[in-house]
């Protein structure tokens, strides 16, 4: 198990380097004026440009630029916004809310997603199954922001069950609606994944053996089939967590949540280029880290992988 972990860790390193380089290149090395759009709606004043060129080493060759940038990253310096605030500070301040939101969303995903998937698989071909299939299909198709606005409109404005927007330092109750919106897409995927896996596993030979052993139907399904089916689902949810942290942009934007997504949303709208880059870099790094953890987790729960 330890060797597997180390192997995965080592494989991660070139990917991290490559990805941060790619992000860097996408922002600073693409043809065109790198400062277009980085100072709000106006072109940047020449003094600012000169200062930034020196600061970001833009006159150095690309690999050197990147090297210095990487050095900064390692020290925790993700740059500054136009107004001078450290990007890292802004991220740390915005993080807790997003984290709460993501956790709530995961809970929805697990409970509703897995539950619906299991029920659909057990009632294959019947009404419940079709209901799950159709509803997940619809949820997957409708872009998140549409679902967001819809929910906000119906449950927030019209019915008034939840506050339509969320202020600073929100309570858990206030976060329920946005969390549900955030979870909706992933929830649909989880339900379909679980349904597909469980259906396949229910037809597997080892399920027949388990039945032939005289085990009760509940034990056969609950212990044998579900356990096998959960594996890909767990890894999906794990990987999704990283995506949730980052992808809450839309949801936080709609509900006015001051989280990382909201931070990103605002900086995009106000064209705060440096902040955008900093936040995206952090998000991608978190995403990679979570993927690594999920890979390790996968090795822990699926014994076949461990002994590769």
């Amino acid at each position, binding site marked *: 198990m330890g060797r597997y972990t180390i192997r995965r860790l080592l494989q991660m390193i070139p990917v991290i380097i490559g990805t941060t380089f790619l*992000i860097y290149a996408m922002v600073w090395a693409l043809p065109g004026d790198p400062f277009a759009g980085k100072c709000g709606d106006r072109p940047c004043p020449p003094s600012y440009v000169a200062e930034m060129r020196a600061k970001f080493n833009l006159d150095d060759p690309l690999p050197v630029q990147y090297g210095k940038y990487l050095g900064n990253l390692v020290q925790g310096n993700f740059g500054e916004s136009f107004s001078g605030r450290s990007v890292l500070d802004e991220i740390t301040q915005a993080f807790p809310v997003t984290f709460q939101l993501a956790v709530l969303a995961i809970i929805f995903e697990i409970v509703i997603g897995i539950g619906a998937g299991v029920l659909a698989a057990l009632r294959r071909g019947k009404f419940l199954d079709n209901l799950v299939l159709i509803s997940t299909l619809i949820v997957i198709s409708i*872009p998140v922001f549409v679902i967001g606005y819809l929910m906000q409109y119906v449950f927030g404005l019209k019915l008034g069950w939840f506050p339509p927007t969320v202020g600073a330092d929100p309570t858990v109750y206030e976060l329920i609606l946005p969390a549900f919106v955030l979870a909706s897409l992933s929830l649909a995927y989880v339900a379909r994944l679980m349904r597909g896996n469980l259906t*396949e596993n229910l037809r597997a030979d080892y399920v027949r053996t388990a039945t032939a052993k005289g085990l009760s139907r509940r034990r056969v399904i609950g212990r044998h089939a579900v356990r096998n089916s959960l594996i890909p689902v767990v890894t999906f949810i794990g990987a999704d967590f990283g995506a949730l942290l980052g992808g809450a942009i839309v949801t936080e934007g709609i509900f006015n949540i001051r989280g990382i997504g909201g931070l990103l949303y605002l900086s995009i709208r106000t064209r705060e280029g440096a902040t955008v880059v900093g936040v995206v870099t952090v998000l991608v790094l978190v995403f990679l880290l979570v993927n690594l953890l999920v890979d390790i987790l996968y090795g822990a729960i699926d014994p076949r992988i461990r002994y590769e």
Partner: protein
Amino acid sequence: MSDPNASLAAAAPETVEKETYLGADLPPEAGKGGQSRSLWSDAWRELRSSKIFVISAVLIVLFLIMAFFPQVFTFGKDPYTCDLTKSRLPPSSEAWFGYDTNGCDVYTRTIYGAKASILVGVLTTVFCMLVGGFLGTIAGFFGGWTDAILSRITDIFFAIPLLLGGILVLTSFPSGDSTTLFQEVGKVVLALGILGWTAMTRIMRSSVIQVRNADFVVAARALGASNGRIMRKHVVPNSLAPLIVVATISLGGYIGAEATLSFLGLGLQPPVISWGTMINEAQKYIRVSPHMLFFPAIFLSVAVLSFIMLGDAVREALDPKLR
């Protein structure tokens, strides 16, 4: 928001339940019709009878007509003739979807908006299929160092979620002066394509790996066929099925992604009309004039839905497990 490509690539295939029963050792149907049955002709036959396929195909044709011949639906009305006095009026018999902030007819704009949205989706998909298909084939076929390097590169690009990447690229290329439809669309296509190819590469690669070990490939090699010929005539045609399924579903995803980027203010810019830009403009008024947002949103959702349904139907038709 999860990257639709990543999740779709991971989603388990859903196979239609044919009657399989425990331990039935029923013999294969002996001598069932003498014609040769290729995967494609079988698939086509099954597709034709699938309700989902028919519905989605009809919808897609409708949208395509909307995109290229909007006049058919708008009876000659022009999306650009606007009357400020009619600003934000709700739906009526005169304007089925009401008017937007500038007094433009929402229905006409929605119909005209199909073009840009669908164009982005189609072009991005084609781009990703070409790049991804090519790289995936090379990586899967040659293996070894080629594969190792290409896979690492794919991993690196894959690590950046589609949306975030799109945001990065588009933030660096603010729209200022490019106003032609072509340039706007091209920008967004590039922004999505720069990361979108990764999913296609992975699918193609794993498909090719499975096929390259098949007996008929080994036989072709034994008969002296060159690598190029084997790839062209044997490997690629037989690896296409999963790629087509993912491409169809991704198309829907890209249409949604364009809309999301536009919603953030980054995607297509006015005066280009797309469902995304319409939604972006309508955001602020959702409390008072929801019609401005919801009609384009419905069209958007139905369009994405049809492509995903189509992809699902194609996947089930091509699923070799049912053969």
